[in-house]
């Protein structure tokens, strides 16, 4: 006999953020909905190297705290950056990003910047290494600006011999 379902659903259960944000900003009086990037073709680089030989880097959309940002100062002049994994602060600057501030928190950096988890996988030989620095990219409405940041991160990855990039948006 077939197993009994855990739940019964009448709608797709996972959230559509494209739909939610359009309805939210429309209700806020913004007439033009944001147009999200959508591509037909998707670049794909087949992975051939054993994981145990791979250098893995993390790309985050969170930032290091700057001057008074821990006390509510606004985010200004955010630039794409690289930072040593050996020097990760206890907290990252996330308050200017659109995450679910009612349902959760970002006090545990490992929940979005998994450097300790990756170091553990490097220590036990699952991966070759955790790259010596991670990369941060500003969240931009402008897809053109993000393209420039992507160029910079690609350059850093090439310099460091990164095999796998784990990208974690907030």
């Amino acid at each position, binding site marked *: 006999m077939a197993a009994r379902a855990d739940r019964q659903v009448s709608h797709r259960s996972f959230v559509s*953020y494209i739909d939610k944000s359009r309805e*939210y900003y429309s209700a806020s009086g913004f007439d033009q909905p944001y147009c999200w990037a959508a*591509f037909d073709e998707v670049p794909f*680089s087949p992975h051939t190297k054993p994981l145990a030989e791979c250098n*893995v880097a993390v790309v985050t959309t969170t930032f290091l705290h700057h001057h008074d940002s821990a006390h509510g100062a606004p985010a200004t002049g955010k630039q794409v950056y690289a930072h040593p994994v050996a020097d990760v602060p206890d907290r990252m600057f996330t308050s200017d990003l*659109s995450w679910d501030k009612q349902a959760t928190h970002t006090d545990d950096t490992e929940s979005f910047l998994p450097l300790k988890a990756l170091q553990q996988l490097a220590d036990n030989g699952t991966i070759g290494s955790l790259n010596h620095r991670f990369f941060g990219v500003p969240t931009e409405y402008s897809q053109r600006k993000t393209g420039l940041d992507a160029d910079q991160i690609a350059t850093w990855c090439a310099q460091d011999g990164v095999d796998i990039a784990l990208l974690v948006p907030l």
Partner: protein
Amino acid sequence: MCHQTVSLVSRHLESQGITTIVVGSARDIVEECGVARMLFVDFPLGNPCGKPGDRDMQQSIVSLALDVAATAITPRTTVQAPVQWGSDDWRAAFMRVDDSNIDALRVAGDKRRAAQAASSGKG
């Protein structure tokens, strides 16, 4: 917006020969953009690598992400992580629009537009 940003970066890195995987919770934004590989974590936005403080879950999500990175054979590969948040209340609550807040949203939007107009007027 974070999800679109990293999806665009992912596409560029992939075109340069670097294997990528996006670990995220806004599945629609990533899939519409189109990336090589995604590990979908069906959580409220903010903790795609596992619940705060849950080291075992975080380790399993990161391990699974690497497995997907190493084994996917075609672009647009999405795998859903076998984890549950525990409550579904956040799904309707995030960016909620209903009769109880629609007037307040409109007022807040008017203020924001006025501030933007004042800011751009400063030149």
